[in-house]
């Protein structure tokens, strides 16, 4: 765009490259290749997702108004996105009125710098953390580390991932790719004073983690959290969790810093009624999550005495500016779409290369961080789906993920210019837009019979089609297309016979 367009607002920035975890090192097919080879990982993920899936179906079916709740959730979120700036200002004012301090971060770098500064001011070089997607997205732990501050994850699964020097692979169950004996080994290796006789049953593993964490809760003066919801009219923040570690972090330390994506707003307190039903049932298949913590500013003599809220953009206004893409911001990160996704089930979360894996990750990641050109791994994410629609059916706020993926594919193609694929697609479009040309093309397809030879099937094709024939045959094209049968004497005779009530082939089909 030239300088003459002065005055036109530029497109809001995406998350900057190289900051945080919204871009993997490899394209999806290549990353999936490594994960697919890991049979243990596939077993672990398959088992876990099938269990949660069944539980979710059970607890959603028992609610007579589940569909209405989904509609309500979707409507509230759509309303929020339509008037986000106004709600954010209302929220900011409410937080300040209750004694909190509000910081605005345009991107991951800014958010990391703000949090680091706040921690440094407290004089502590250790922080405890409540499981949070936003801080993972911006790579906060890694940034703090470079600044000499150690962050301890207190969610059990996050702790396993952190101690394992690993990356989370699921929104809700970050260590879904690990099994018990792997976890035992990580604890033995990484936890100080752990009992060498530690067994691998869940109770023993939890006890070891509890002992390790209790000490941190009692001694660390600063906590960092994310937020599931921020209530615009009261300035209240909410975290829902299962273990109670979050509540410890939210109440024991002197200073609390919350990093919240700007899309997490709900207009009123009452809206929680909808989301506190939708979220736990969709995510863990539970009727109610065990711990729901809410806090509003600071309360003298009770809980943290200093509260900072960092409102994070990092590509969200860019997603919001996209008429279609903004639907992705309705996501409440329940992970139901991951648990039903057949692609996620096979590849696991790491293949997506982003903090947000699975179907919603494939939509949200390119929205937040962009897909710059054909070599960007993010540009392969919209294609990491068969568009089977299981995610759409599972989503508690009815995000039409398949349509969003199709839309992103369209955007990606528009950005890519002339490629071999584009030429092939154009050629196909030309051939198929007139039946005369199409009939000629069908004749050429008939040449496939030569490739197939006597066996009547094709078992090797040249690139890029060799991916198909690596594991699948293709039948030879039949001698006669449907349209030539329709125009043939044979076709006419068959239809005549059918008109008289009989089928010429009878049951002969099966014997063929």
């Amino acid at each position, binding site marked *: 765009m030239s300088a003459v367009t002065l005055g036109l607002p530029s497109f809001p920035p995406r998350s900057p490259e190289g900051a945080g975890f919204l871009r993997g090192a490899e394209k999806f097919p290549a990353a999936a290749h490594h994960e697919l080879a890991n049979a243990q990982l596939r077993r672990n993920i398959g088992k876990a997702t099938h269990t949660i899936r069944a539980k979710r179906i059970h607890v959603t079916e028992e609610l007579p108004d589940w569909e209405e709740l989904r509609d309500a959730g979707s409507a509230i979120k759509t309303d929020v996105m339509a008037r986000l700036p106004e709600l954010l200002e209302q929220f900011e004012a409410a937080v300040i009125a209750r004694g909190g301090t509000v910081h605005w971060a345009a991107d991951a770098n800014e958010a990391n710098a703000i949090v680091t500064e706040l921690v440094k001011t407290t004089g502590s070089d250790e922080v405890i953390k409540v499981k949070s997607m936003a801080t993972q997205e911006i790579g906060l732990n890694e940034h703090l580390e470079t600044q000499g501050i150690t962050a301890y994850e207190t969610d059990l699964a996050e702790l396993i991932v952190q101690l394992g020097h690993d990356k989370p692979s699921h929104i809700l169950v970050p260590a879904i790719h690990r099994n018990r004996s792997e976890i035992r080994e990580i604890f033995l290796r990484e936890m100080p004073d752990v009992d060498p006789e530690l067994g691998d049953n869940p109770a023993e593993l939890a006890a070891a983690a509890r002992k390790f964490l209790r000490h941190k809760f009692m001694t660390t003066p600063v906590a960092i959290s994310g937020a599931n919801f921020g209530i615009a009219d009261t300035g209240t923040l909410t975290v829902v969790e299962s273990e109670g570690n979050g509540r410890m972090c939210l109440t024991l330390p002197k200073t609390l810093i919350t990093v919240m994506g700007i899309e997490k707003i709900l207009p009123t307190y009452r809206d929680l009624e909808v989301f506190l039903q939708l979220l736990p049932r969709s995510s863990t298949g539970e009727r109610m999550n065990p711990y729901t913590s809410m806090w509003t500013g600071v309360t003298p003599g009770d809980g943290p005495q200093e509260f900072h809220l960092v409102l994070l953009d990092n590509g969200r206004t860019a997603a919001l500016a996209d008429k279609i893409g903004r639907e992705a911001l309705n996501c409440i990160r329940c992970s139901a779409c991951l648990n039903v996704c057949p692609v996620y089930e096979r590849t696991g979360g790491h293949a997506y290369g982003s903090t947000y894996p699975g179907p919603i990750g494939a939509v949200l990641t390119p929205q937040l961080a962009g897909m710059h050109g054909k070599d960007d791994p993010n540009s392969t994410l919209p294609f990491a789906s068969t568009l089977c629609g*299981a995610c759409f059916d599972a989503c508690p706020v009815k995000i039409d993920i398949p349509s969003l993926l199709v839309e992103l594919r369209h955007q990606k193609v528009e950005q890519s210019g002339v490629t071999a694929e584009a030429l092939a697609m154009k050629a*196909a*479009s030309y051939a198929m837009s007139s039946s005369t040309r199409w009939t000629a093309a069908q004749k050429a397809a008939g040449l496939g019979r030569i490739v197939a030879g006597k066996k009547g099937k094709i078992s090797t094709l040249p690139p890029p089609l060799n991916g198909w024939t690596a594991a*699948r045959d293709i*039948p030879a094209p039949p001698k006669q297309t*449907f349209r030539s049968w329709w125009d043939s004497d044979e076709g006419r005779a068959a*239809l005549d016979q059918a008109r008289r009530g009989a089928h010429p082939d009878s049951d002969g*089909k099966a014997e063929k």
Partner: protein
Amino acid sequence: MRVALFATCIGDTMFPDAAKATALLLTRLGHDVVFPSGQTCCGQMHVNTGYQPEALPLVTNYADTFGDISIDAVVAPSGSCVGSVRHQHEIVAERYGTASLCGQVKTVKAKTYELSEFLVDVLGVTDVGAYFPHRVTYHPTCHSLRMLRVGDKPLQLLRNVRDIDLVELPEADSCCGFGGTFAIKNAETSTAMLADKIRHVADTGAEFCSAGDSSCLMHIGGGLSRLQMGTKTIHLAEILASVESRVHA
């Protein structure tokens, strides 16, 4: 009823038996089946791969071919192509087409049906008088299931087929891994999904795996063939069109 058959591009070229069966079945049921020769492809592959402007001529061609008011209904033996007509044609027309095309697309999509929908919802038939003495399992393809919501209509039809031994497919609802160009762009993941589908098909001991979409059957069939499993694939329409021959009667 004057019913236009939409054979679909892949059906016309690669799997004519499904289109033949559809034509013969609807004719046997007393309908006047026509095959408008101007038809080609619904454009689904283009839209799903990100080539919406390239899909426009195909959407236009579809609307022109089937817009004929003498046609009461358009029936295709493909859940995914009907899904595309119903959910994607308008998007493409609104973005790249003229206002008149948008209107035409709306009218034509309202009379386009997938075969089992047409039989059960429009004609009100669940017993088409078919005879198929074989062990069959049914894979409800994703687009029929979730884009079109055909529900158990195909099963209602299959249950009424004489002498059929219909066996339930474990984890029937899970995708076979085809997904159009997904099977090529993400060939390994697609294959991993297919492997599970094939294992479930094998577990049923069925002679035939049936479905309402030739493309999914091509995928499943391609895997079965490579593994030389013996189980054959067959389109739902072919089972429904089979009748006991006079010789047998």
